[in-house]
């Protein structure tokens, strides 16, 4: 086979880490599917996994066709990106480098693509066990194109208006978690409660080991998610900031898992595995915007706080009476918001924060970023949701919900015994 000379420019170490990270982030999608699916009833396990796997297929295509172009194309007024030549990635040669980094642009495209995939998948947690699969697929496609891509541009693309204002979001605290969390809340309200939730009564998870395994895969993949995001700030990509982000990610996850466990011990005397897993995820969510900006000790703090905040939010759900099936809002919305603001207080690089350098301005910027994101995603999701409810309908009908999405929508059962 003919040899192929990679431009000496390319740094193999940075590329290796970018590719590894992108692969790890992809693994988060099955991980999320398991995390969620273990928490629902048997009759809905396939339906729940399909929300995530469906997004993997649909957004996987959308990103290549138009998504990347909208998010990272040439800036248009700080609001959106666009380059006709980027449609279908047509104009990207394998040897093209990404910005001033020494990695192939395609590697960066793929890394970012995984973020676009997992975000709508996260939303599905709020509407599991009752939302129509067909509608969810259309929703993801539109939401990703009309809401996620612009938002990613605002925050991460040079020229994006939030980016230019110095809002810090290292790996997606606002773009991924606040966006998905708040959209999830809106969608949950539009879809309405599950029948059994009406009858009051938490739905016991049907397969906790699966949820734990999913949490494990998420933790693993999150290292790519956060440490890989160093691509935005340093060259070579696998350097000091990548190491820092890795350390803070690990630390926050452990701290949050531990504190959620302790909270439950204190609250009702039983440290549950679902609690530990939830804490881990809460910590990972909260550290996401801060990963490359804070020191490990700050990650301990953020992790601890994340579990308190999210645990409280989840308890609130019962009170307020909305049905966020798997706490997509409680964990991602609340955790993401906490992390985004905490970043303003605790960051030390590239700028100092309020507590680390008396720079209260950064807190303001973080609030601006979070506020803008919430406003935009809530409105956007509301409009989108109402349109879809009017057109396709958001919810399966009562019998289908009663008999389970698996048989009704997918013509499958998760498990078969010998008899049936």
């Amino acid at each position, binding site marked *: 086979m003919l040899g192929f000379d990679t431009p000496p420019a390319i740094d193999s170490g940075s590329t290796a880490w970018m590719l590894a990270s992108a692969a790890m982030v992809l693994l988060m999608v099955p991980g999320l599917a398991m995390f969620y699916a273990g928490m629902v009833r048997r009759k809905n396990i396939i339906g729940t996994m399909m929300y995530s796997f469906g997004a993997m297929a649909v957004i996987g295509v959308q990103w290549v066709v138009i998504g990347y172009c909208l998010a990272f194309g040439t800036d248009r007024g700080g609001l959106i990106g666009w380059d006709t030549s980027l449609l279908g990635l047509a104009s990207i040669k394998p040897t093209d480098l990404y910005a001033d980094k020494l990695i192939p642009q395609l590697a960066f495209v793929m890394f970012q693509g995984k973020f676009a995939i997992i975000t709508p998948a996260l939303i599905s947690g709020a509407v599991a066990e009752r939302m129509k699969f067909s509608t969810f697929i259309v929703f993801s496609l539109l939401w990703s194109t009309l809401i996620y891509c612009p938002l990613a541009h605002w925050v991460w693309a040079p020229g994006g208006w939030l980016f230019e204002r110095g809002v810090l979001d290292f790996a997606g605290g606002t773009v991924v978690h606040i966006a998905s969390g708040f959209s999830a809340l809106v969608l949950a309200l539009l879809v309405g409660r599950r029948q059994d939730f009406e*009858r009051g009564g938490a739905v016991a998870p049907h397969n906790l080991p699966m949820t734990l395994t999913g949490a494990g895969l998420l933790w693993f993949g999150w290292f790519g998610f956060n440490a890989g995001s160093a691509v935005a700030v340093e060259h070579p990509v696998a350097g000091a900031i990548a190491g820092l982000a890795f350390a803070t990610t690990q630390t926050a996850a452990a701290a949050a898992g531990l504190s959620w466990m302790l909270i439950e011990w204190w609250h009702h005397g039983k440290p549950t595995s679902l609690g530990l897993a939830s804490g881990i995820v809460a910590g990972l969510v909260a550290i996401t915007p801060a990963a490359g900006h804070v020191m490990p000790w700050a990650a301990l703090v953020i992790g601890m706080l994340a579990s308190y905040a999210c645990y409280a939010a989840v308890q609130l759900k019962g009170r307020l009476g909305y049905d966020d099936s798997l706490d997509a809002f409680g964990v991602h919305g609340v955790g993401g918001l906490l992390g985004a603001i905490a970043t303003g207080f605790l960051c030390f690089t590239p700028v100092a924060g309020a507590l680390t350098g008396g720079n209260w301005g950064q807190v303001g910027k973080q609030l601006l970023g979070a506020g803008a994101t919430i406003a935009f995603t809530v409105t956007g999701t509301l409009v989108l949701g109402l349109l879809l409810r009017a057109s396709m309908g958001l919810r399966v009908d009562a019998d289908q919900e*009663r*008999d389970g999405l698996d*048989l009704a929508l997918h*013509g*499958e*059962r998760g498990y078969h015994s010998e*008899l*049936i």
Partner: protein
Amino acid sequence: MKLIIAVIRPERLEAVQHELVTVLDEGDSYRLTVRPVEGHGRQQGEVEYVRGQRVQSRMVSRVEITVGVNDQYVEPAIDAIIRGARSGANGQVGDGKIFVVPLDDCIRIRTGERGGQAI
């Protein structure tokens, strides 16, 4: 004493239990045993697809409940089960059956009591 065996839709179990509480006057500690079963009746089984191939399962999942009752409770219990298990005003195919089996004796393991008061 009779042993009432009823095969019902899984999703009706909750309703049936509700109805039974009212008639078995043991407050919330009414006695009941439940087991999952696969039924075959007039109703057709679920349809599944495996890589494009249609699979019509012969069976449908049902729940079987057994209640041991003293004679004076038989009729009320049967009515209660019907009330709880029937889907819609005049039922649907697949709502299930109730079988009444004679019971020669009944023993409470804890105390060794027998017959009526043990049930």
